[in-house]
Every structure is written in C-alpha cells, then in structure tokens.
C-alpha cells in the first residue's frame, strides 16, 4: 500500500485594516458608517473606562483588577457581530465587549470593589458574569449551545472568550471536542495576547498557532489580526452565520497583545522587555481605526474631542454615582445560597446578624 496524504489542513490568516488604517477592499465586511462609528465608540469607551479603573485602583479606591488596554478590538469586534439574543460567555479581559453588551460602567467598579452586585447586566441576561477559573466557562458555552439546539431557538449562537494560556487547560480541549461532536452553535474566540501572566506563548505551547488546535476537532478555524476590529468582526460574523445555519462550531484566534500589567498585582518588568511592548504599541487597535474613519471622511479632530469629552463625562458620572455612600445588605449571602429555605442557614443568619451588630456596628 502506498503512503497517502490524509489532509492538507489549510489554515488562513487575515487582516482587514492594517496598522496605518488602510483597508483591504476585498476583505471589507461592509459595515455602514453608523456601524463603524458604533464600533469605534465602543473601543474608546472600553479604553477610557479601563484607564479610569486602573487609576482608581492605584488610588486605593478599587481592589485588584485585570487591565484590558490594547485588547479593545478583539471583544468589541466580536460583539459587533452578535445580537442580544446570542450568549456572551467571557473571561475577564473583554471590558469593551461587555460595555457594548450593555454593562454599566459601575458594574466593574462594584466587582473590583468586592461586591457581587456588579456581576449581572440588567438589560442583558444572556451575558454571563466574568469567569476567573480559567477555561471553566468554555464547556458552559457548549452546554448553552446544546440548549439552543434542543429548544430550537432560531438564529441564536454562543460566543465564548478565553486567553492563550487557557487553551492549555483540559476544559478547553474537552469543550472543543464536545462542541464538534454535538455540532452546536458556538464560536470559540481566543484572545492570544502572547502572555499568561509571566508565561510566554513559547513555554505555553509548542504549536505554531492556536488556531491549528481546532483542526484536530474538525472545526472551521482562522487566525486574524486581533487588533483589527474589522477582521475580528468579519471572522465572527462568518462563524455566527455558520452557527445560525446549523453548521456547528467555529474557532477564531485573535492575535493581540497585553499592553499593560496582567492585573494590578502584577509586575511585568520581572519577565518582559519594554521593546516588545513598544513594538505592539505601533499596532494599536484604536489608532488605526481612527485613521481609517478619517480616510473615509466620517471623522475629524473636532468629532474626536467631542466623543472623548462625552465619554469622560459619562465615566465621571458613573464614578460619582458609584462612590455615593450606600449600605450593601450585610447578610445578602444568606439570600442566595439555596433556592429553597434551609433551617440551618436561617439559624446561622440570625447568628450572623447578632455578631454583625456586636462587631461592626458596636451594638
């Protein structure tokens, strides 16, 4: 028997907007001017909010938080392709995308000040809370995909987000396998930002790309410039359309970069060089998008200034509102532990309130 080739396993990479904001006409996904401006605003809002949160943290007004600076295009581009009825199953580095899903600026302030109250988006029940246990959200996305199939929900998909490091977890591979076996409407979107805290991609995996991992699961897969919102949008649009059409899961590797600290507790000078960061600064997702809008003659400095002011005012108002003194119900954890009334829990609530009175309010 002659040796035969099993498959060519083709894998493509694309970029729509280059670093200078020049568009590849053949790949233009054709968003309207209004949509382009919406996407731009979402990225700027994400950036400005991220910067403000970091400042608040450094001033001691917030606890430890992850920083999303530089990764705005990856989640905003994807959310641009989603409807409210699609499920958003994220990790913690998708601030722009979450704000676009309707999250209020106060939500992250609540979460990063230790309050569960910030976890759900009132207007968007199909946006799951941030997932801190890495990759644990990915199988959940597959289960949601299964529920969509079972309930025969039309034109509904799940988009799940995770980092490069998270693809080393069993949960990632197990979820990919389930998704392809079950043929569920799920889009796997990996934000490859080169680092998992101090661990560089090279130590994380011997694979040349992350996108190629999907080939093993027989899943359509593509690698895109993750700092190019239009490329991420296009790849997600196509993946969601396949999901809507009943063609099952898809994979997208968005190549981006973590420009700042992993979280505010991290010190990147211990493990990476400034030139690498400087090189990536040239590929900033917002700068190139703005240049593109300028070339299209739908944007100028005046509009930019107005937008920045509007967004900063919005953030300032949110901070002010958030910092208004208010009492968060001390015994709220007792309200949500079970869906049924449990005697022992109610007994402990009484004990808690007694102790709270003595210890906290000095009663």
């Amino acid at each position: 028997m002659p040796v035969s080739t099993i498959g060519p396993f083709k894998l493509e990479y694309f970029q729509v907007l280059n670093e200078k904001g020049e568009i590849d006409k053949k790949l233009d996904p054709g968003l309207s001017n209004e949509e382009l401006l919406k996407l731009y605003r979402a990225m700027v809002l994400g950036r400005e909010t991220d910067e403000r949160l970091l400042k608040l943290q450094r001033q001691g007004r917030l606890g430890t938080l992850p920083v999303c600076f530089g990764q705005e295009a990856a989640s905003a581009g994807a959310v641009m392709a989603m409807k409210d009825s699609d499920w958003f199953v994220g990790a913690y580095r998708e601030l722009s995308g979450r704000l676009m899903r309707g999250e209020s600026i106060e939500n992250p302030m609540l979460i990063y000040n230790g309050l569960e109250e910030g976890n759900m988006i009132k207007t968007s029940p199909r946006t799951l809370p941030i997932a801190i246990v890495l990759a644990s959200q990915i199988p959940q996305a597959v289960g949601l995909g299964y529920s969509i199939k079972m309930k025969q929900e039309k034109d509904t998909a799940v988009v799940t987000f995770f980092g490069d490091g998270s693809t080393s977890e069993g949960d990632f591979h197990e979820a990919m396998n389930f998704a392809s076996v079950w043929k569920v409407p799920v889009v796997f979107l990996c934000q490859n930002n080169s680092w998992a805290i101090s661990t560089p991609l090279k130590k994380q995996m011997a694979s040349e790309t992350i996108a190629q991992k999907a080939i093993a699961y027989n899943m359509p897969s593509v690698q895109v410039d993750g700092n190019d919102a239009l490329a991420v949008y296009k790849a997600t649009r196509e993946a969601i359309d396949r999901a809507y059409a009943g063609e099952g899961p898809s994979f997208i590797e968005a190549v981006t970069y973590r420009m700042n600290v992993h979280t505010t507790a991290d010190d990147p000078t211990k493990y990476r060089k400034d030139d690498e960061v400087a090189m990536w600064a040239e590929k900033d997702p917002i700068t190139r998008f703005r240049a593109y809008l300028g070339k299209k003659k739908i944007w100028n400095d005046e509009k930019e200034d107005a937008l920045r002011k509007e967004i900063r005012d919005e953030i300032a108002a949110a901070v002010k509102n958030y910092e208004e003194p208010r009492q968060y119900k001390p015994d709220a954890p007792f309200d949500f532990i079970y869906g049924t009334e449990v005697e022992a829990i109610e007994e402990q609530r009484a004990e808690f309130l007694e102790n709270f009175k003595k210890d906290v309010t000095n009663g």
Partner: protein
Amino acid sequence: MAKLNMIQAINRALHEEMAKDDSVLVMGQDVGVNGGVFRATDGLYKEYGEDRSIDTPLAESAIMGTAIGMAIGGLKPVAEIQFSGFAYLIMGQLEANAARMRTRSRGALTVPLVVRMPYGGGIRALEHHSESKETYFAHTQGVKTVIPSSPRAARSLLIGAIRDPDPVIFMEPKFIYRAFREDVPDEEEVGELGKARILQEGNDITVISWGAMLYRTRKAIETLKEEKGYSIELIDLQTIAPMDATTIAESVKKTGRCVVIQEAQKTLGPASEIIAIINDKALMYLEAPVKRIGMYDLVMPYFHRENWYIPSDGRIRRAIEETLDF
C-alpha cells in the same frame, strides 16, 4: 538566626532543600522567571535553572498528574497551585492516583511530592482567592494536609513535607505571608508531620486553631489573659490530616473546656473532627460543651463583606468567654 516573614521562610526552605537534594524541583504557573505570584520561589530559577524551576503550561490537572509521574520516577516535585481556588482541578489526579498508589501497588510505588498553595481570605482579592477548603484535601485518605501558622513553622514543616514519603498538600495562609516576622534559626529544623504543637500551656481552657486564624486567636487570647487573667492552653493543629488526636485529648483532659476556631465553613470542617475526637477520648473530662467558630455555611462573599464572615476577634473572644463561663 534571621528574622523572616512566612514567604521568605518558605523560599528559604525551598532553597535549602534544592541545594541538598538534586531530585527536588519546583513546578507550576509563573514559578520560574517570575518567582511565583507571591515570590515564594524567587531566585530558584536563577540558582537551579529552568529544568528544576519549571514554568509549566496552564493546567492544574496536568501539573498534578505529571508531578505524580515524576515522584514515581524518583524525583521530588514541589508543585505550586497559584491559588487554592484552582486546586479543585487537581482533585481527580490526587484522589485517583497520588492518594492510592502506595495502597494499589502494595508499597512498591510511592508518590513523595508536595503541592503548595496559598489559601484563605482577608487580602481583598478576587473571587476564588479567599477560600479555606482544607477539608477537601483532609478527606483524601493517603494524602497528608499541612498548614503552617508562622514563618519558622512554615520553613520546618515544608522541609518535613518534602522529605515525607507521602503526597503532602501544603496550604499556606496567605493573609499572614507578610504579616509578621519570626526568628528562624540557621540550623536545619525538620518539622514532624502529624503533630500538633502546644504554643502556650494553660489550665482553664484549650483553644485549638491553625493557619491565619491561629494568628488572630493568639491576639485575642493575649488580651483575655491580660484583662481577666485566664490560663489558656493554645494548640496549633499544624497537620489537618492525619490529625494528632493524642495532643488534643490530653490537653482537654487537663482543662475540661475547649474552643476550636477555623476559617473554613462550619459544617464538616476540621473542627467537627476535633470535636469527634474529644467525644471519643475525653468526653468524661468535659465541663462545658466544645464550641466551634467558623465561616458560615455559605459561598465565601467577595471582599467587601469578607471580614464580616471570617471569624472576627470579637467572635473568638466571646466563644472563649462563654465556654469559660458555662
């Protein structure tokens, strides 16, 4: 003699054991170049290179599973799980293999390894960074679970754990990583696993705790002693499993009263077992019911509410006084 905080003491123990024994290595997420997110493995990468200070890919189950293989193969891995909140992902390998290999092979194959992990609350961290779930590990027969409560104890118990012939879960109370310093002698000290230590002798009541709660309890006791002149016997449990029943029972026989303070949720926590031991071995000596103080039976709240839920100084004091007044 050096005055070290707990992180420095742990770091020191790792340096000492790696220098002495070529088969000892550290592995885990960010333990190499970065020296660990709390800097517990700082300097090991420089000193012993990447083969003995391994930045692993991001997969807890594989860290545990490969460590088991290494241990069977004659190495002594000291694995780090970045936070105990991610250690549930090691449970399959721990229970199915690390815990059972000795029994399964009738002693032919052993798994001498250590898994270190910071645990516990009070540092204003994100979700999954503040739990005390020692019970999960303590209920894994064949595995030893150790919790140090001071720098000197951390250094000696970690060395003891590395030299122990069994898999050891070494839980580090991160609230007191840098809370205080203690004299750590230059000479080697090898902590004995499975032994509680009496930190302070007394006759009126036995108070038992471990980890960060012990630190808090100690302060509460000092004020009680000063204000009221009680004679309190304080026991640092140190090893959650296997538990030192003798030290517990002997102390309670002497004092007739006991309070247990744990950071873990109340139901089925180590305190429940301590009370069962007292019931078995010292019931007739009791002059008051044994009290246990712990976190309520809830999901650990995020940090805004955290300190209302972790046993407070006031709760500890009141429990001791109520038991004394009974």
